[in-house]
């Protein structure tokens, strides 16, 4: 940190000299009804890193990661994506969203489009790729998440696990710099959780920068570089998975872990 400050570099780097993809400082947010949901949250995500955010329900995890692609506006603080600050007038909003992929708990696939059309839609209309190029890349991605055969089906014809894998492929098709996952396995039947986690694990192995809200402890232990605990709109603890699960520093972390383990 001191190194980057003294040299006044453009981009923020961590101790190993890796640049930050997401910089957030003292982010505060109130909902329209006056509820103070984020109370000054700071978290930097560095390139190639997997950060898992945990915390009790209602603690503001979804709200927090949704500020990263400007799905939720915030009132105070600063968020930079790949060096571009999210302006409060939302001017550069589409440029930022192009670089940030998001996978939702409820998949949110487009039911009126085929799997292939779901994946090629944004590359064709936003990146302005030719249809043939978009489809070629989409097929490769569908292959990677293991559902190439389902390309011409509609989302409603697929199982939950398959739908979530399509959703991941759809986000990847935009070639984002960072992927956000908001409880991607919470809406799935238990037997389908693994196929989705496997895809995410491979993604992490290939070097994708990922921010995951999830309560899958096995996944966090194995894949995460850092685990963050959020409670009542604040970051309570930030630790390595090893330390976080074996001997957490904070009392609130211990309490949370005793509830989910």
């Amino acid at each position, binding site marked *: 940190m001191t190194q980057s400050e003294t040299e006044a570099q453009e981009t923020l780097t961590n101790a190993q000299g890796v640049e930050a993809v997401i910089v957030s400082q003292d982010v505060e947010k109130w909902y329209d009804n006056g509820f103070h949901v984020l109370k000054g949250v700071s978290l930097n995500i560095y390139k190639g890193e997997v950060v898992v955010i945990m915390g009790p329900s209602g603690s503001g995890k979804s709200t927090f990661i949704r500020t990263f*692609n400007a*799905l939720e506006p915030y009132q105070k603080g600063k968020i930079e994506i790949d060096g571009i600050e999210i302006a409060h007038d939302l001017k550069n909003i*589409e*440029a930022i*969203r*192009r670089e*940030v*992929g*998001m996978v*939702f708990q*409820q998949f*949110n*696939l*487009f*039911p*009126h489009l085929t799997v292939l059309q779901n994946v090629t*839609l*944004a590359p064709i*209309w*936003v990146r302005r790729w030719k249809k043939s190029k978009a489809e070629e890349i989409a097929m490769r991605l569908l292959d990677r998440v293991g559902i190439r055969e389902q390309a011409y089906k*509609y989302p*409603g*014809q697929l199982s939950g696990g398959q739908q979530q894998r399509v*959703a991941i492929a*759809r*986000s990847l098709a*935009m070639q984002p710099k960072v992927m956000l996952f908001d409880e991607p396995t919470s809406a799935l039947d238990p037997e389908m959780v693994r196929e989705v986690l496997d895809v995410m694990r491979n993604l992490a192995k290939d070097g994708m920068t990922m921010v995951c809200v999830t309560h899958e402890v096995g996944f966090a232990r194995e894949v995460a570089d850092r685990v963050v605990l959020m409670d009542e709109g604040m970051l309570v603890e930030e630790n390595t998975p090893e330390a976080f699960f074996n001997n957490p520093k904070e009392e609130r972390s211990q309490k949370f872990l005793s509830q989910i383990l």
Partner: protein
Amino acid sequence: MTTISSRPADTKPPQNQTSPLTWVRKNLFNNIFNSILTIVLVIIIGLALRGLVLWIFQGAEWAVVTNNVSLFMTGLYPRDLYWRAWLMLGIVVALAGFTWGVVGRNLGSLFSRNVLMGLALAALLIMLLPITRPNAPRLIAYEALTVAMAWLGQQAGRKFSGLGMKLSIGWFASYFVLLYLLAGGDVRASVLYFVGMIAVSAIAGWQLAARVSLLPKLGLFEKILLFLVGFIATYLVLWYGSWLLGVEVGLDRASTSKWGGLMLTLLLAITGIALCFPVGLLMALGRRSQLPIVRGLSIAYIELIRGVPLISILFMGQVMIPLFLPEGTRPDRIVRAIVGLTIFSSAYLAENVRAGLQSIPRGQTEAAQSLGLNTPLTMSLIVLPQALKVAIPAIVGQFISLFQDTTLLGIVGLVELLGITQSILANPSYLGDYAEGYAFIAAIYWVFCYAMTYGSRRLETSLNNELR
């Protein structure tokens, strides 16, 4: 591996094959009460049907219809221009057959059992019904001709299966062709010729600029100049050409006061439907806009119009506007009628579309946005296609209402189908033939409304099959 079920794997689900007799017993006579109800209803329906059939074949005086078919169909449209009405019908039928061929090439063959049975039934009715019997040979010839044209259109359509979207352009253009055929007059005054003139002139200008600029060293300014020269020259030739040659190009003018009957009803309904859909869509989107002014205006429009009966809007158009505007500046009364229908229907249509928009979960918008799609793209690619599909039944219901509401224009003095019927029935020689006249047009209205309902159901199922 153990087998739990002893049945072979390909057992079919048990089929409920019931004989008609068991069906009747199970559904109509399954207990005392239902048996009595069935018998009573059969007697009532039987008596009513008998009365109806007797009236149709013996009691009714169908002369009021058979003597006035052309009035019912075209109102006071001049007799010597009937060929234009026929030509319009021919164009519509041919285009419909062609469209069916392109769109419905995956459907079964044209002459499926049901279609053949329907055609035979129609022929039988033509021969039996007192209204149509006098002209039976001619009408059956028309039926055959229509079927033949639909068949030819379908054959042609199969060859051009890739046409898809261009068909709607064809319909769009043909609307203006039909409008010109209906109205006649100097061809240069028609929308069609005007648009055509602009297009041809633009192409000519473009060609000129492209050809000449093959010569080296031509700046953008010179190119634009060349384009303008080509455009204006072509435009002038097209506009004054016929005058220079000393020929009048155009059809005899048929004043709008002569338009009437079913032809006018269809013109009003189709134009109203075509206009109220985009207006309603814009209002629905406006109502959800982020901009307070747009939202406020949309809400004001929708709520104002929905609080006023259609008949008062139409009266305003037909009776009040002429009081305020001096002679010569008033729009034609048919235009005023269409504007009234459009204003009214679009407010209701906006609410139908809004209901559809509200049924789309927020996650759809968020997913689209998180992929980097901007608001117009999110709307047009993700939200609207789904919302309109949900709203199809309500929208078509609104179209059907609009079609039926054209009858109100008969009350404010237009001679559309209801209006012309009223003036026919006012003729002393058909005194007391109200039932016959109204039954005839009721049948016509029913056929069109049912066709729309049927079409919307087919559209819905085909979309559902696709979306699952």
